[in-house]
């Protein structure tokens, strides 16, 4: 099979890969050619979508592990709060494109560089929310737990962390949605994901590809957010009960 021929669109428009049969919509570079999108979804978009999800999951997972640990330390040792807050806030202020570019000389053009930057952006919100959640545990609940002879570790695992879950989940939702959005930029340093077809489409001017990839990123964010809400309801059944008077 010969390489995909290029079709020169009418009126000197953008160069669009044909991948076989070019419909009228494609040759005219219409806003969104649905049939082309569905034909190419499996081969062009699905792998990118999966990649995107992986990039996000790793970033949020690693970020959560770091932020939870930091929040628990800050909960037990007050002095730790300010330095970690400042550190994570500083990371948060770095422009994303610059951050990705900054990592290249250190860790190269690859996923690792992208993940380091993505993880950095999750820390502030996850740290703040976890710490706020832990500090919001009612004093009386902690006193009861102490009086029952729960060790500090048992208190943390059985009482304090579970009660901080609504705040932790709220932070996780924001961090995840933000990361899904940011991950599109990570394609700039070759991390893959849905940013890849977006960058390609910016180069070629192919509107359908651009809108499809952008739309998929948005859809992914919404679906994941809804999934997290459902997870939260499942793991905090107590938080939605109404007071019976």
């Amino acid at each position: 099979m010969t390489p995909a021929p290029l079709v020169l669109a009418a009126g000197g428009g953008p160069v669009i890969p044909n991948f076989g049969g070019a419909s009228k919509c494609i040759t005219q570079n219409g806003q969104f050619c649905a049939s082309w999108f569905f034909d190419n979804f499996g081969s062009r978009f699905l792998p990118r979508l999966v990649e995107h999800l992986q990039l996000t999951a790793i970033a949020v997972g690693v970020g959560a592990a770091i932020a939870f640990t930091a929040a628990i330390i800050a909960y037990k040792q007050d002095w730790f709060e300010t330095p970690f807050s400042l550190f994570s806030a500083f990371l948060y202020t770095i422009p994303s494109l610059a951050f990705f570019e900054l990592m290249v000389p250190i860790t190269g053009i690859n996923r690792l560089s992208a993940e380091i930057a993505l993880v950095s952006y999750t820390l502030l919100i996850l740290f703040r929310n976890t710490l706020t959640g832990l500090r919001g545990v009612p004093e009386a609940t902690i006193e009861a737990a102490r009086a029952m002879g729960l060790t500090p570790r048992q208190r943390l695992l059985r009482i304090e962390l579970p009660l901080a879950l609504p705040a932790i989940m709220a932070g996780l939702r924001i961090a995840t949605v933000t990361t899904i959005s940011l991950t599109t930029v990570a394609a700039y340093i070759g991390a893959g994901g849905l940013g890849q077809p977006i960058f390609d489409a910016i180069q070629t001017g192919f509107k359908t590809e651009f809108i499809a990839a952008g739309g998929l990123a948005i859809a992914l964010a919404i679906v994941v957010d809804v999934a997290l809400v459902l997870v939260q309801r499942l793991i905090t059944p107590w938080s939605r009960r109404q007071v019976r008077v």
Partner: protein
Amino acid sequence: MTGRRDSAPAEIAFRDVVKVYPARERPAVDKLSFEVPPGEICVLIGPSGCGKTTALKMVNRLIPISDGDITIDGASVRQLELSELRRGIGYVFQQIGLFPHLTIESNIGAVPRLLGWPKSRIRERAAELLELVGLDPKSDLKRYPTEFSGGQQQRIGVARAMAADPPIMLMDEPFGAIDPIARERLQNDFLRLHSQVRKTIIFVNHDIDEAIKMGDRIAIMREGRLVQIATADDLLAAPADDFVASFVGADRGLKRLRVRTLEEIELGPPPPDGRASGPTVSLDTSLHYALSIMLAEGTTRLEVTDGDERVVGTVAMDTITQLIAPAAATNPA
């Protein structure tokens, strides 16, 4: 083990217990010494800041002891391992502190779970206790704390404190935040419960009427020191000093009528045929209630009946009012 019945109540003894806070001149608790015999309810009472809550919380070491010692059946609480000490002491306090994320069953089962009880036994125990405190195990075990009123939550709090059947319970103003009607019911239910399942209880509050009702003995504290420890009757009859007299109230003579029953006074002779000819009250009626009946009925005499409705004597208003007088006379107010 499953067949084990309630453990024997323990004796609690304070020995020159001192609590000093670094920034304060005066100790919060100053050489406090008293004993609570097994199975008794001892009410610690006094104005706010008198050290009563501090004293209570030193028993399970929620507050560390500065000097002196507290012993449980002779064993120093300072020697016991902290978790072990606390698991053997039920703790009920005003803010209740139920775990909002756990069902009622898990709340009650918290300490048994720490002790490694099997699930089935925890469930049985939770159901048994919930019934004991007047809630419905069938509908309430799987609910969450926020679904209950304050009074119901404190009933659950009491059940939770009793879950592993501790020989001792510490209660820090447990009914303080409950509305008066629910509080009265809680007090009555708790006393009934205590008569069935005897525990050694230290009960902190600042309401002398509740203390008189709940306490086998009442310990009055002021500025970290014990001023007087006595039964309600003795306390009302003979306050140790002016502070105690004013704390128990100028109407202590009247209050004393609540803690004494007709059985404790000398009755007038019954009618020869043993049949009632006017309003009657039974022997176990409090003097306070008997007096109320006289006032309500507009009479100065009541006939007193025993358990079989037989008249065994009479009581005159004068007899009761004379009992108020001597106590009141020593109080200039």
